[in-house]
């Protein structure tokens, strides 16, 4: 599914990711943990093609397709989705209009038919119900005036509507209280499948109680410095990241 090989990423000439290699097979959920500033968000931006995150070496492919040569929207159409650590507020763009535009743009790029407005409304209501997204939230301009938790919920809502194949969740747990965390995690788990995969970036082990990972990787100093099973997350929770200081 996702194959990252010896990836190097610079921001403004400063090396942030330094030779990262990672493989996430279809059907699996991998977690990436690491201290603040380790480069977790940088990795997610580099994979999704944000300007200014310059890949200087290495490769990244999704089902064999070279991601790095594609513009962000083409990567999205291939099924790559990023739930942002800090979702943006976009005044003047109604949430549902935005999501329908996005879904239809992806469909068009894949050579599929557009979804009709009634079909989309039906779909959006069904998904909203599951994720505790209210009608009011869907009618407001995108994320405007939302709490941190509401924004994260909207990210997962968008994810469920767009139904991507590879999902990157960048600190989706931050800003969520325990009830919201449960609802959102259930929503995420519902999107798991044999032909899909996820990269769950988190700072805390807590999220991984709800979204059970197959593998856990530690990112420090721009590389994967340790990998293991779900237990690794528990160890990290107890001992912190200090022991990776030198490895980085």
């Amino acid at each position, binding site marked *: 599914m996702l194959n990252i090989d010896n990836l190097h990423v610079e921001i403004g000439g400063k090396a942030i990711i330094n030779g990262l290699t990672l493989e996430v097979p279809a059907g699996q959920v991998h977690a990436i943990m690491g201290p603040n500033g380790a480069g977790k968000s940088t990795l997610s931006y580099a994979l*999704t*093609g*944000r*300007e200014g995150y310059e890949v200087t070496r290495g490769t990244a492919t999704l089902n064999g397709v070279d991601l790095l040569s594609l*513009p*962000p*929207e083409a*990567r*999205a*159409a291939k099924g790559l*989705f*990023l739930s*942002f650590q800090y*979702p*943006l507020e*976009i*005044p*003047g*763009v109604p949430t549902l209009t*935005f*999501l329908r*535009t*996005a*879904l239809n*743009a*992806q469909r068009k*790029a894949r050579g599929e038919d557009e979804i009709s407005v009634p079909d989309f409304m039906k779909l959006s209501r069904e998904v909203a119900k599951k994720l505790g997204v209210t009608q009011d939230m869907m009618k407001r*301009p995108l994320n405007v005036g939302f709490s941190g938790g509401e924004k994260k919920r909207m990210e997962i809502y*968008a994810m469920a509507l*767009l139904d991507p194949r590879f999902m990157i969740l960048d600190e989706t747990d931050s800003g969520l209280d325990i009830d919201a965390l449960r609802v959102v995690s259930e929503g995420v788990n519902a999107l798991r499948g044999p032909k899909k995969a996820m990269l769950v970036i988190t700072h805390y082990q807590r999220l991984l109680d709800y979204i059970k990972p197959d593998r856990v990787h530690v990112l420090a100093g721009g590389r994967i410095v340790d990998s293991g099973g779900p237990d690794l997350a528990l160890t990290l929770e107890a001992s912190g990241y200090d022991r990776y200081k030198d490895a980085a």
Partner: protein
Amino acid sequence: MVLVAPSLADGELAVLEALAPTQAGEAARASILAQGLPTKRNEAFKWSDLRAALQDGVPKPSGSAGMVPACWQDALVIDFTPEGFGLEGDKDAGLVIESEESLPLEDVVGVESLAAGFAPRALVLRITSQQSRPIFLRRHPGAPMRVRVELKAETNLTLVDTSLGEAGLASALIEAELATGATLTRYSLQQGGNKAIDLSHCRVTIGAGATYEATSLMFGAHFARAETLARLIGAGGYCRIRGAYLLAGSSHADMTSKIIHLSPDTFTEELFKGAVQDRARGVFQGKILVERGAQQTDARQNHHALMLTEGAQIDAKPELEIYADDVQCAHGNTIGALDEEALFYLRQRGIPENQAKALLIEAFVTEVFDTLSEQDVRDWFNDQARTWLKSRVG
């Protein structure tokens, strides 16, 4: 010493010819002979050089005046053509329509004097009771228009004007007097080709408890300038002007306004938003003048614009001049680029770059229309903006 009249450029000579044989035409002619057309050396025209815009003469009119949009189907349509004006549609009771000689304005030079000078006659709209039927002033390519509106106390009128010429010099002068408690609502749409010159000036006197509320959308032209001069002369008078502009290619649009608070307890609310790309130029000059006696004035002005590409130009001059001490005045002015982070966010969701840009620009600029109470009018403006964005950006 011998006085030599300044030598006139081709454009100025052509303008002299286009002026009507009226007193207003004579006055404009005299002013051009004495000092020429305004150029960038005149402070008020420093970003909009009219003489330079006319250096190749007055373009021959071409293009169409456009259809009457669906949301104005029930309006009384008045067509202004280079030959004169004509009416079409029903007229409500309480509306008196006359025409009068185009008289010169006192002590003025510039757009208003020219617009007065081009018009062979002035149309007079006298409103004596509430009007439910809007009046649609359809300005044809190359046509002059002069309209004087008198709103008696407690009356109201909705005035729409459009100017969509491909080429030609079109002009408009609207003079409005709003008596106590009267409301004039005005909507304008301007979209000119790269051989169109559009000069418009609206001067309005706002009485006690009266409201002037104007909303415009400009796409510019070879040279387009829309001026507003509003005078608030009675307590409770309210002036609200909203304007959006979208400019591409070599388009030029200038929004110049002066709002004078002469009475206590008067209000101004101004919001202008625009986006400019290619080699186009947007000009915003907004002056609010609060005279000594105008205590408890509340005036707000905002102008925010996006520079979409290098080479585009936006010039803004917000000006507050306040001679009263107990007032609330605020203004904000920003010129920036499209938010790269927001753009990436939309693209990550699968929206192609140009479409994402168009979406963000539309959201930014059409905020101006968000507070319009009539849904179909809001849609009309939003649709114009969206159509333009689709062909120019998305």
